[in-house]
């Protein structure tokens, strides 16, 4: 006997969660399975839609022959990307024809973001406008993003309040002074300075940000002082000290690395703001990411509320098809035992090359769960170009789909009627350069889930 559901979603990231909730709202009984804990824990927590349209044609024809990994002096030349874009919707028409946004349309993006707004409530901002916000990242750049966590709200670059960025020596990947310097060099419309303060030194040298967040959540004693008070006291002298470094008076707002509490983050920020007499915001960091972890918690609660069944920790290891090519059931490896999971329709939202929804070796790029067709040049040297920041063909590799997000075979025909594909496993987008990963997941997840429910 199989574990049966109407819709079976494979993948526990943003696309899978969106698809599952979207299908459940159509009345389907939905089950979501995920090989590992959600990779949202590694996400910045920013929800981008479309920040740039990178050029797909070089400024001058590429040199003949295989790329030389930069050893050749005859370099590629590519025009600058178009952006940062104020309005993501306006630019969709200028994306390549097989881009997921072109398949499902701007309305799907709008609906996907609206669903996200509904699920996250007061925890996120940006839904009041179609325009992108510019949010400082821990690298000191400004990221065009459609939605941002409330914790980042006071840090928007469009806000002209003077700013202090604080850092901690033990957080090696986060240099406050360099960050502030880069923001300044980037021409932000506010005074900004960076300062390294003594606080995280109370923890072990390689302490985890979850440790600091927990200490702030619980307001633990740090060398005899409650953690929040101790942190505020460490920062306070720099509110005016920063004059020397950045020509700033007493600053109006203070940016912290994103470790200001987990479950109690709202209370932690409020107390710090109160003690500092300045607005407080978080700057999203790379993994491990507390904004990502908080988003994961929010969205998994939403899954439960939507009545979706879910289980993590088990990979899909096989499938059986019906005579017409549609998928009858998937085989899930439950700790060494293969158990069939039956469903009327399947949503594949397993992620891209980084998320392991796509696999690659010297022979080619494959989709490992359903063996879906992944269009690619047969010659491996055509997968990439010399310029690391150029138009890399591999970045757009993925499953091709029709406008209903059904997978296409090598002849451009639908290969499985009851399968829908969503998120980074879809080809056609270069999400890293476009700043479009979240939007693609939301838009295609929404459509895939709704479409899958219609098969029931």
């Amino acid at each position, binding site marked *: *006997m199989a*574990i049966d559901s109407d819709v079976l979603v494979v993948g526990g990231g943003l696309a899978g969660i969106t698809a599952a909730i979207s299908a459940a709202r159509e009345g389907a009984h939905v089950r979501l*399975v995920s090989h*590992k*804990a959600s*990779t949202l*824990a*590694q996400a910045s927590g920013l929800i981008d839609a479309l920040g740039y349209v990178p050029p797909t044609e070089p400024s001058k024809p590429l040199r003949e022959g295989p790329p030389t990994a930069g050893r050749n002096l005859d370099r590629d030349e590519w025009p600058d990307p178009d952006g940062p874009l104020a309005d993501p919707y306006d630019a969709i028409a200028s994306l390549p024809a097989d881009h997921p946004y072109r398949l499902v349309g701007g309305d799907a993006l709008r609906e996907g973001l609206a669903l996200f707004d509904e699920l996250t409530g007061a925890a996120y901002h940006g839904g009041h406008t179609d325009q992108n916000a510019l949010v400082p990242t821990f690298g000191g750049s400004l990221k065009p993003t459609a939605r941002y966590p409330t914790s980042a709200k006071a840090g928007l670059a469009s806000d002209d309040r003077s700013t202090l960025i604080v850092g901690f020596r033990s957080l090696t990947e986060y240099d406050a002074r360099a960050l502030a310097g880069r923001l300044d060099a980037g021409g932000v419309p506010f005074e900004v300075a960076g300062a390294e303060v003594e606080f995280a030194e109370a*923890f*072990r040298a*390689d*302490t*985890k*940000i*979850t*440790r600091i967040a*927990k200490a702030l959540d*619980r307001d633990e004693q740090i060398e005899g002082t409650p953690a929040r008070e101790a942190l505020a006291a460490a920062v306070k002298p720099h509110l005016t000290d920063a004059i020397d470094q950045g020509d700033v008076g007493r600053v109006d707002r203070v940016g912290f690395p994103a470790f200001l509490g987990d*479950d109690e983050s709202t209370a932690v920020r409020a107390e710090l703001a109160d003690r500092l007499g300045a607005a407080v915001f978080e700057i999203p960091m790379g*993994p*491990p990411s507390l904004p990502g*972890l908080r988003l994961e*918690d929010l969205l*998994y609660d939403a899954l*439960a509320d939507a009545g979706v*069944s*879910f*289980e*993590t*920790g*088990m990979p899909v290891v096989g499938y059986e098809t019906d005579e017409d090519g549609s998928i009858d059931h998937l085989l899930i490896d*439950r*700790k*060494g*035992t293969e*158990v069939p999971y039956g469903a009327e329709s399947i949503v594949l939202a397993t992620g891209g090359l980084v*998320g*392991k929804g796509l*696999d690659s*070796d*010297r022979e080619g790029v494959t989709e490992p769960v359903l063996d879906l067709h992944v269009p690619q040049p047969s010659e491996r040297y055509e997968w990439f170009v010399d310029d690391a920041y150029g138009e890399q063909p591999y970045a757009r590799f993925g499953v091709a789909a029709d406008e209903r997000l059904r997978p296409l075979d090598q002849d451009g025909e639908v290969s499985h009627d009851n399968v829908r594909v969503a998120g980074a496993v879809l080809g056609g987008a270069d999400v890293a350069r476009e700043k479009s990963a979240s939007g693609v997941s939301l838009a295609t997840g929404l459509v895939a889930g709704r479409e899958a429910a219609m098969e029931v």
Partner: protein
Amino acid sequence: MTGHTTDETDDAVQRDVERTASSDDERSAATDGGVESASGGAPAAELDPDAYDPVDVFPGGDLDLREGADSCYKCTSCDTSCPVAEVDDEFPGPKFQGPEQWRLKRKEDHDIDESITSCSNCMRCDEACPSSVPLSQMHNEARGQFVEEQMEKLSVEYIRNRILANYRTSARLASLTPRLATVAMNFGPIRVAMDKLLGIPSERDFPEFATTTFREWWRDRGGAKVTNPEKRVAYFHGCYSNYNTPEVGKAMVRVYEHFGYEVLVPKQGCSGTPMFANGMLKDARRHAETNVEHLVEAIDDGADVIASCTSCSLSLRQEYPELFDIHGIDDLAEHTFEALEYLRIHEDLRGALEDASLDANQSFAYHAPCHARNQGLERQAVETFRDVDGVTMEDVGDSCSGISGTYGWKSEKYEKSMQIGDDMFDHMEDAEGDVGMTECPTCAMQMEHGTGYEIRHPLQLLEEALDA
């Protein structure tokens, strides 16, 4: 006087150790090199060895964990998932304990860092890792090596850990005089002495010992009431359902017989979970040999193996094939399931519960054990009971309970254990019900300790709902 007692204990344990060592083929290594099954989560097919020529820069080692170490790309998801790193400033986290330490000890630097003993073996890192690095396997191996080669065998810590790891032995003795044992083990002065001498925290209450063990009940009952060669399961009750909560074992039997299963109760030892967590791999192996022998016999008779404790089922499914190479061990892993999981796969549980209703409305604060998460079972209780009339089942969040088997039973870890449990206690208080529910016996101890709630097992509720 006290010194004399300690010496006697030392001697007894030491004799036990020597007996164990000599009965174990004089293996110098802590593990026995289950090389065939040591590739961790990633099937060998994923990496094509013909595609490259690996240079063996890390020769030696008992388990071939290189592929796992190489798969780590330092995303630190494991560190983020670690409940101990969140509260313990001395603990460097699973990434160090696993792939990094494994590399370090390939070469000259052979010593295992003592911090490995602070890992609680919750195994959350396994599920967190997007690259299928076999973190808990690496931790088990390192901990085994540390205990075997670096830990002072006459130290109080070793003796205490050995006693905790071999809970079955203490429980068996206690069961001879259960009422006396329950009283004695919770008698104030004795507990103060245990805290001082052995480092077993006096704050905790020892669980009550049942006056009739599960196996005694099973024998008195005359064994199985249903005979069915087509549907047969072998029950792995583990130590706790046998000696402390036989009502869980009874519920398992009644529920399975309700669905027409013939239940077998084979001879069995400890699953090994507390032994792995304390690096006592030889003890674990001794019990594993018993378990594999008798459970595989039942499998040959057409049975699947069912555990009601999620740590027992995880041990049989994951740690056994990862750490030991015993004939039949892979068969056992393949045929082992958790009790509710098995029914959800093989029976129409939703249908069976459609018309079920309880006498009175009941609300539960449910906690998913870490070891249940690792088997994809974190939602099964909530999802099974959410549509049952009269039942409110609230998930109290994804935090660890903090006890992690024997971890919270060590005086030096007690505070940390309670700090980890804080989130769960808070969420339990917030939940509507004032009865807790979980599959794991030690999580149940922690839930009760932190809130004073009565804690039940999902099988008990299933028994009631089905009127089994």
